[in-house]
């Protein structure tokens, strides 16, 4: 039993913690920080900028298709636009933004002061930024990839795509996948080893389950796409013949490997959204989530099933029919866990006392659109029927319903929900509702007609169509809808920007949430929590109304995190956390140089390895842990 600190001691303690966890001042601090909150904020800002650019591309394409035979964008510009839009949204927005939310939220939800590998988090951002520049700087220079977000050979092979457009695309993927693997390993280790004492697996909030599963899926799925893009680059750069039928290669090998990653990718984007939705529904229904176990099992089963479905992207290539039937059954089976999730969320609303603030509105919007996307997914999962649907606008409608309705709507809900925690201020509800109405209405107006267009024979990725096809009116409606939702997006961002300074102060727990992040002050200090919380239930802030029990002992003088056992979260030891360092940035630059160089010459892989080795040596150079202040501080010589 220890005595409670007096108020003066508490102030002193906080000041010492602040000193221990603070970044260096100025630009050096910006470059060397390993603070998970700052890193996540960078990710989010980058992602929002990219979403704006990708949205502009989408609008441009929609204008081109608004009427038949328009010449706003020529074929080359149109092909570049959809390639850049798809590649940006899939590789540079959807997956990284989920990782960013996890990097920000996981330590807070665990009552911890940082990630398991703080420098790795910094490295993953710098490498991700390298990937962003890899795609967008060439766009400025006029060498944009122009073959879609999956570049099938032989079209992307050396014979049909001279120049460097396809190389840029392939190497951009390598960047983002290395970054995503780094982030995922970090998230998995943090969730498994840094849970607060008492947070057994059974008491783990669903968001953490979702991020654990999504990160494990990333670790298993991404090597496939890195392999396949590396094979493509080898075909192009050193004339291997992986995908050249004349040289004994097989073009379908590319599709198998790509979709072995590509399908889990969709769930890597969707599963974190399950976590967001569950957190929001629970808080705003004022009851713990109905069917927690069912939700955990559904997320786990999606994580496994997702790896057995990839062939449904290839039903039209002419594979054996019996095999296709197996993939039909496996693809449709996803509807069971997804359907149970929907049930659990509505049941929670049904039996709770929901308050329809903006985050919950986004959840309602999510249910309304995502279920349509899921049901159209069942249609495309049928191997014979898919022959009429695949590669048409029906598919465009389907995956926008799944990815925007199923992942972006929950993400926006999550941004609205955790905004007060991140900034300390509330967003305007009125403008929030307006943004929701515009985005939700515009999205459905924009994408629902595409189902019909697809059935009426409009293939995807065509830059124009003739008036005689009769696709004009519905395309005009779709363009109007897309423009409306982009206006809504601007309202949303403006609301967030203005509320940053002018919103009402939020306090620690404005929505009355149950999980540990609401225990920290808003915005959280650099060290997140003064004490390590001890968790005794699945909704700690709801069950311990008189204040959480805490564990003392985590250091104040140096950066320390508490490591616990993987299943029962029994405290094991204190781990020294990494201090700010320039090496992640240096390593990021070295890796970037190698990746960029490898587009031009295979020797870049050899010589580029040397600076990377040097950077990693600097990064891992052993340091004797020394406190900077307090009784253990290094004495002046």
């Amino acid at each position, binding site marked *: 039993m220890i005595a409670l600190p007096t108020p003066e001691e508490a102030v002193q303690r906080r000041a010492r913690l602040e000193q221990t966890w603070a970044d260096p001042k100025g630009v050096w601090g910006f470059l060397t920080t390993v603070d998970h909150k700052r890193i996540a904020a960078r990710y989010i800002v980058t992602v929002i900028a990219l979403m704006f650019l990708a949205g502009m591309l989408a609008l441009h394409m929609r204008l081109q298709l608004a009427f038949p035979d328009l010449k706003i964008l020529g*074929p080359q510009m149109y*092909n570049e636009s959809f390639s850049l839009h798809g590649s940006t949204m899939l590789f540079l927005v959807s997956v990284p933004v989920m990782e960013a939310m996890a990097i920000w939220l996981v330590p807070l939800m665990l009552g911890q002061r940082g990630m398991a590998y703080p420098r790795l988090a910094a490295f993953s951002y710098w490498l991700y930024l390298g990937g962003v520049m890899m795609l967008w700087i060439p766009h400025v220079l006029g060498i944009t990839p122009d*073959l*879609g977000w999956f570049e099938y050979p*032989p*079209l992307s092979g050396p*014979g*049909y795509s001279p120049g460097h457009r396809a190389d840029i695309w392939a190497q951009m993927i390598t960047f983002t996948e290395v970054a995503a693997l780094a982030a995922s390993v970090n998230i998995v280790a943090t969730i498994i080893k840094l849970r607060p004492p008492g947070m057994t697996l059974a008491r783990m909030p669903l968001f953490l389950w979702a991020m654990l599963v999504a990160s494990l899926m990333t670790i298993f799925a991404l090597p496939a796409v890195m392999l396949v893009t590396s094979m493509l680059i080898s075909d192009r750069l050193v004339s291997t013949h992986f995908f050249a039928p004349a040289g004994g290669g*097989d073009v*379908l090998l590319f599709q198998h490997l790509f979709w072995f990653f590509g399908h889990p990718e969709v769930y890597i984007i969707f599963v974190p959204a399950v976590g967001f939705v569950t957190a929001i529904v629970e808080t705003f229904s*004022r*009851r*713990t989530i109905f*069917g927690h176990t069912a939700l955990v099992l559904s997320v786990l089963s999606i994580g496994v099933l997702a790896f057995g479905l990839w062939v449904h992207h290839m039903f*039209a*290539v*002419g594979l054996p*029919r019996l095999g296709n*039937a197996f993939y*039909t059954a496996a693809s*449709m089976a996803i*509807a*069971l866990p997804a*359907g*149970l999730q*929907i049930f659990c969320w*509505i*049941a929670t*609303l*049904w*039996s709770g*006392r929901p308050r*329809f603030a903006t985050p919950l509105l986004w959840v*309602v919007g999510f*249910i309304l659109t995502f279920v349509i996307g899921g*049901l159209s997914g*069942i249609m495309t999962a*049928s*191997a*014979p*029927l898919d*022959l*009429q649907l695949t*590669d*048409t606008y029906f598919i465009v409608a389907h995956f926008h319903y799944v990815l925007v309705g199923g992942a972006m709507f929950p993400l926006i809900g999550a941004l609205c929900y955790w905004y007060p925690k991140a900034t300390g201020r509330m967003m305007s509800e009125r403008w929030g509702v307006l943004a929701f109405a515009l985005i939700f209405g515009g999205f459905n107006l924009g994408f629902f007609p595409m189902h*019909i267009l697809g*059935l*009426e*024979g409009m*293939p995807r*990725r*065509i*830059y124009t169509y003739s008036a*005689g*096809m*009769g696709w*004009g*009116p*519905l395309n005009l*409606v779709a363009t109007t809808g897309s423009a409306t939702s982009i206006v809504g997006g601007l309202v949303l961002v403006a609301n967030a920007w203005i509320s940053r300074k002018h919103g009402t102060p939020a306090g620690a727990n404005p929505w009355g949430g149950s999980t540990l992040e609401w225990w920290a002050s808003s915005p959280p200090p650099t060290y997140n929590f003064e004490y390590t919380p001890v968790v005794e239930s699945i909704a700690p802030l709801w069950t311990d109304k008189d204040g959480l029990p805490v564990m003392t002992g985590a250091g104040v003088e140096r950066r320390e995190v508490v490591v616990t056992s993987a299943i029962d979260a029994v405290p094991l030891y204190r781990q020294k956390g990494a201090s700010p360092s320039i090496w992640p940035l240096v390593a990021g630059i070295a890796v970037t140089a190698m990746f960029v160089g490898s587009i031009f010459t295979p020797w870049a892989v050899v010589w580029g390895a040397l600076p990377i080795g040097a950077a990693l040596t600097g990064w891992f150079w052993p340091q004797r842990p020394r406190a900077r202040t307090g009784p253990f501080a290094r004495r002046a010589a």
Partner: protein
Amino acid sequence: MGRPAAMTRTRSILPILLTWLLGGCTDLQSAISPAGEQAGRLFSLLQLITWVCGIMYALVLLFLGWSMVRVWRRTGGDDAPIVDPADRGLSRSMLVWAGLIVGGLTLLITASFLADRHLASLRSEEVLRVRVTGHQWWWRIAYRDSTTGRWIETANELHLPAGRTARVELGSSDVIHSFWVPNVAGKLDVIPGRANSLDLTPHRIGWFRGQCAEFCGAQHAHMAFDVKVESPADFALWLAAQASPAALPADPVLARGAAIVTEGACAMCHAVRGTPAAGRPGPDLTHVGSRRSIAAGTLTMSRGALQGWIANPKALKPGTTMPTVPLDGADADAVAAYLESLK
């Protein structure tokens, strides 16, 4: 008095709006206006799945709507959060819901499997063989002449006899394309190094349209073809006409055009059977004048369109491999007139 008038107006606007939105569609290239055995079977599968999915969606809406109305009705009460309430009724409902999903999925998986099996069972041996080769960005189409046994080439226009199964043997000369005539059957990819074949059994006579459905480069949007389903007698006549070589023109203008086409630059890439022109890279022009459109569905066939296409193909179809052949006005007229005469 104003109100009924307004109602009438609404009543008349709605159908007009619907006609504008949907009626514009010509059903030339539509999966929901089947004109063939395969597309018909797929359309009924689509209807079944749409019904089942529609019912499931209605249930979700009902449950969601009900849960929201309940809140609205509820009065006052404590705002303290509830931790782990007993949800016995809901747990039972979840089992029922899971049962519904499993039942629905079983139905749909079975229906899908049966549809696939039905499509496979249609594959008889007594078929009309058609070779279709995808090129960036047009379709080479070849029929077997039953009298000589030779393959007769045409391009971008597929003729099919109604009521008979045609087996389309798909090949690609460059990248991956996808062969799709939605009114008649589902699509099948055209993959270099793979021999795919697709059966088409059309039963409604008329003009339809097919289009490449796998992105294949700059002019993917202009890689369409016309499909004519006709009576077996008409088909036989058409095939016989296609098998015959091009007629030698007597008219001096046409003869001038013929000389330019068959002895000039055009012959490097195009063939006109019965003349010295035997180029292979481009579409066969022996009966180009009988086709409905030119440049893979880009333009409707007419002398003006031919002239425009030859004068500047890259303006009409940027990226096309067809070069601009410099011709003066009179020569261009003669070439267009000759090509149009190749019926």
